[in-house]
């Protein structure tokens, strides 16, 4: 991430950005399912439900 802040060349920026993003996705992909569920539940708690009144598990 720090590296990205110092890149001025557009092509180089997107190259490094893609590599870093892919590494982050791979890291998240390899988390245990229970941990992923925790992350999703935090996301759900932070977003309004498209189902209107339906609660999240944290409500």
């Amino acid at each position: 991430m720090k590296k990205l802040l110092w890149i001025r060349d557009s092509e180089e920026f997107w190259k490094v950005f893609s590599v870093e993003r892919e590494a982050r996705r791979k890291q998240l992909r390899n988390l245990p399912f229970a941990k992923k569920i925790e992350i999703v539940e935090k996301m759900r708690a932070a977003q309004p439900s498209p189902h209107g009144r339906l609660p999240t598990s944290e409500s």
Partner: protein
Amino acid sequence: MIEALGTLNQLKREGVIKDYAIGGGYAVNYYLEPILTYDLDIFILVTTDKEYSALYQYFRSRKYRIENVYIIIGGMPVQFLPSFISPLIEETIRRAKRIRVKSTPSKVLTVEYLIATLLMAFRPKDKMVIPHLLEQADMRLLNEILGRFSDEKTPLDKRLGRILESLQC
């Protein structure tokens, strides 16, 4: 979510359903990085309308909240998709992968069957995740499944072909 899985295991023990497997967004989350998912899609092995109604009766009699197609279990809106709507659904449940979420046993669709069910639904959000799931799929097995369950109305193999073509652009 884990509370919902515990309730589903209870339903299995009591014989209300024969079996179940996690599908939809939570199954995608099992294989990929976490994405925002509002409800839990559960594929259930039931053979008749009567068995399916008995499931809703089970929850109604225990005062669970039911909103539209969702049953709220531990705060999680759960949608049940019965196996009698498609032979593909029945096979996805039978071939599902056994997992444990913390200490709770459960089953999740294998990546190939998950892709097949997403190709059935074929909504924009399904089309977006399929290319990432394909990275983990056994293409020979996937093509074999799609070959058996594709028909004129639901051309799963052609839908996959369109996605693969778009990836080459």
